[in-house]
């Protein structure tokens, strides 16, 4: 079973709530879900959709073909017609004027029943759910159980009215709907999936940061990064996290650097444009060795680009942003589960090496929802790195030269110590200097951190067999679609594997060299036009990818699209 639903309409019509309810019902029924959000940069109107994929096997990407469309506007009735499966169904509210009816079209009284039975037009989501489930011949008993669980906390009356509305549309559709659907789920029982935590990449990052003892976050709103900041703000009071919306991104990162200097774990969230403003201060974080975690939810650029859409084109910009040379770490989680882990690691790495650590997400990663296993925080370890011995020390030197380049940290307020930091070249005591010898030693201090940084980073993960003829080279959020494409090709008899990177920079090369040396065709698959990660690999190893698959229309990849690209390029 692998069904895709597309709920389309205008911004503000509540397409998300229908999508959420649908995925919750299937999660309750024991299935894997994967939801993407496609929306325009506007508050009301336009055409937006939520697309929910449901399967009895783990899924990590959307697909192109849709089984059931729910249309809340006239545009939504026609917009996805070409993506509809042969036996697909388009359910739309019968108040929408639409005459070119085909067998796949099903006008349903969603709004009317929501008002009549539920007493509120907002019950349209339950109405749509009833119609969808009936079209699939999904046993209503399972839906009723799910609705009980979903709305149970809101009280019996809410459960009852939702069930009543869904049932009314379910029964009506069973009676009226004459089309066909490629799935008939009347014998369906509970699915195999026990994962009940529905999470976006954004929320997983927020949870990870909070578990990592984040104490300061400052941000300026910018799509698609804002949801991380909003989530943390919503828990700031309960967990005692300092959170401030600032006048601009420069202030955000400077405040976070100030917070870091006092000893608080700090973070900023932004997208490419905001990161552009932050760049000078990234250098300050490096020079003052005041660690900060920077999250960039990438969107298509340059400039304002496509504000609500997805791309992976800030990789090289972030790797080389700022004047001067210094170590930094860049991580790109592939999905929500990995995002939680990446957030907790990012703060430890930042503290351990006293450097800026960057997390690269993108709109697709940030807004997509999937159900994952319950996250257990008991495994989260906090490593603050090297700290100075407590007690007075008039000779304390913030930038003491050590073999590994890392100086023990003390913080202002520590009795008997003076903590002096500077963005200028400084002596061991933090006071500025132009001395050539000290300058050389301080640059070496930065670079001496690199071996241990490399050791702390994770090597890439190989999916499939080592020694396969073709290797898909991927990073970050494109993992899911590429992984599914690899499976499709493998099933078709192609010798193929996937080498995937979460830890991007500095690049660990041992496993990379080992795997790539055995592959005859290396194909980089990236959501950008210049194959930026493949360029990074080439820079670090001299290994050149043979083929490049690039998507830069702002929409996420699907496995089918990748497979088609590979076939069209004649790669065998």
């Amino acid at each position, binding site marked *: 079973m692998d069904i895709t639903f597309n709920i389309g309409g205008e911004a503000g019509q509540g397409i998300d709530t229908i999508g959420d309810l649908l995925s919750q019902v299937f999660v309750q029924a024991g299935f894997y879900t994967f939801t993407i959000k496609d929306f325009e940069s506007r508050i009301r109107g336009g055409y937006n959709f939520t697309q929910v994929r449901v399967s009895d096997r783990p899924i990590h990407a959307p697909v192109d073909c849709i089984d059931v469309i729910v249309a809340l506007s006239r545009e939504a009735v026609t917009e996805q017609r070409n993506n509809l499966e042969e036996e697909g169904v388009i359910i739309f509210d019968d108040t929408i004027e639409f005459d070119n009816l085909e067998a796949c079209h099903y006008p349903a009284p969603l709004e009317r029943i929501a008002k009549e039975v539920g007493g509120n037009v907002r019950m349209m989501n339950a109405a749509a759910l009833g119609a969808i489930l009936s079209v699939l011949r999904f046993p209503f008993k399972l839906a009723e159980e799910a609705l009980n669980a979903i709305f149970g906390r809101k009280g019996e009356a809410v459960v009852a009215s939702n069930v009543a509305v869904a049932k009314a549309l379910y029964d009506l559709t069973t009676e009226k709907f004459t089309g066909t659907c490629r799935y008939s789920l009347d014998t369906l029982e509970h699915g195999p999936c026990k994962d009940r935590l529905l999470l976006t990449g954004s929320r997983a990052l927020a949870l990870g940061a909070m*578990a990592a003892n984040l*104490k300061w976050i400052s941000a300026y709103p910018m799509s698609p990064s804002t949801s991380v900041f909003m989530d943390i703000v919503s828990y700031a009071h309960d967990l005692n996290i300092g959170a401030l919306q600032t006048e601009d991104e420069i202030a955000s990162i400077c405040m976070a650097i100030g917070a870091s200097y006092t000893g608080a774990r700090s973070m900023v969230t932004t997208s490419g444009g905001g990161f552009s403003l932050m760049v000078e201060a990234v250098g300050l974080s490096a020079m003052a060795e005041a660690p900060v975690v920077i999250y960039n939810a990438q969107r298509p650029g340059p400039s304002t680009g496509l504000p609500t859409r997805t791309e992976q084109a800030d990789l090289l910009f972030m790797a080389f942003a700022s004047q001067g040379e210094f170590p930094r770490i860049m991580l790109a989680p592939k999905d929500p589960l990995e995002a939680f882990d990446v957030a907790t690691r990012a703060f430890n790495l930042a503290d351990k090496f006293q450097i800026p650590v960057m997390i690269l997400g993108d709109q697709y990663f940030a807004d997509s929802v999937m159900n994952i296993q319950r996250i257990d925080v008991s495994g989260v370890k906090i490593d603050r790195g090297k700290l100075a011995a407590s007690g007075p020390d008039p000779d304390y030197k913030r930038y003491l030269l050590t073999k590994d380049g890392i100086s023990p940290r003390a913080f202002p307020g520590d009795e008997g110590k003076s903590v*002096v930091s500077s963005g200028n070249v400084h002596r061991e005591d933090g006071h500025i200097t132009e001395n050539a010898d000290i300058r050389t030693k301080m640059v070496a201090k930065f670079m001496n951190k690199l071996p241990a940084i490399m050791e702390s980073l994770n090597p890439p993960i190989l999916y499939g067999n080592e020694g396969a003829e073709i290797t898909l080279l991927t990073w970050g959020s494109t993992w899911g679609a590429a992984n599914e494409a690899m499976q499709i090709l493998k099933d078709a008899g192609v010798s193929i594997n996937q080498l995937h990177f979460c830890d991007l920079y500095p690049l660990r090369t041992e496993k990379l060299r080992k795997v790539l040396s055995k592959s005859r065709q290396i194909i980089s698959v990236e959501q950008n036009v210049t194959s930026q990660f493949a360029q990074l690999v080439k820079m670090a190893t001299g290994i050149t990818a043979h083929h490049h698959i690039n998507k830069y229309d702002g929409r996420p990849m699907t496995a089918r699209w990748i497979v088609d690209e590979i076939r069209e390029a004649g790669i065998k």
Partner: protein
Amino acid sequence: MTTAEQLEGPQKVTWCTGCGNYGILAALKKAVIELDIPVHNLVISSGIGCSGKIPHYIGGLNSFHTLHGRPIPVASGIHLTNSELRVIVHTGDGDCLGEGLGHFVHAARRNVNLAVFIHNNGVMGLTKGQFSPAAPRGYVSNTSPPPPGAPMDPANPVTQAIVAGATYVARGFSGDQKALVELMVGAVNHRGFAVLDILQPCVTWNRQLTWKFYNENTYSLQDNGHDVTNKLSALEKALSSDSKIPIGVFYKVDAPDLASGIALPKDVPLKDHITNLKDVQKIIDDLVL
């Protein structure tokens, strides 16, 4: 008790002979002694320029010499994550009123508890004498358009601060030590955003705003009767086109500061607070269907 020996500068001063910054440094040291706050609880955040170097000329306390225009946001982060610290910003007119003006206005609006000392000499000294945002109209420099000189009016930090919402706004003069120390102590002890605009001659570049000019053209607000709680009369004094420049406290009121609106823990500084992992687990478990 803090001693003068403790505050002795770790580095040789690089300011020009006769520079107005010497008076500011001397007053700062006297103010720190008078404040009698343990030096480990004092932090200076400075920007870039001649003013930005002051942390290297005073010993014992904590300091962060930051970026051009950015000492206020850095200081805000320091203060909010450890409100036991007293944070003093040293910034110049180029630093604060050029690249940093946006931060200055917003920090005032937030009434964040910082003392901001503006070393105001009307000129970009360290980059060799370009007109600063505080340079008078017509000021001739190597980057102002010839022949008229700077074709714009100067930024007035006192006016800006009062209008933006600062709750302690004063002006001092590097040549009037007694008053300057008093104003510095007042600014640090004030809870809220305290701005002290400090007039200081740049003896190398600025031929207009000299020691002689300031000595002849300043007068004390307090000696001439002024209600510091009246915003409109504070503004009137700040905007006065009178040839004489007022020195002293323009405006001083009590208002809620930013920290009182942030989720700070009651018992420890924010930076020492540890999130209970059980609370995070509960948040996650509440999200599980």
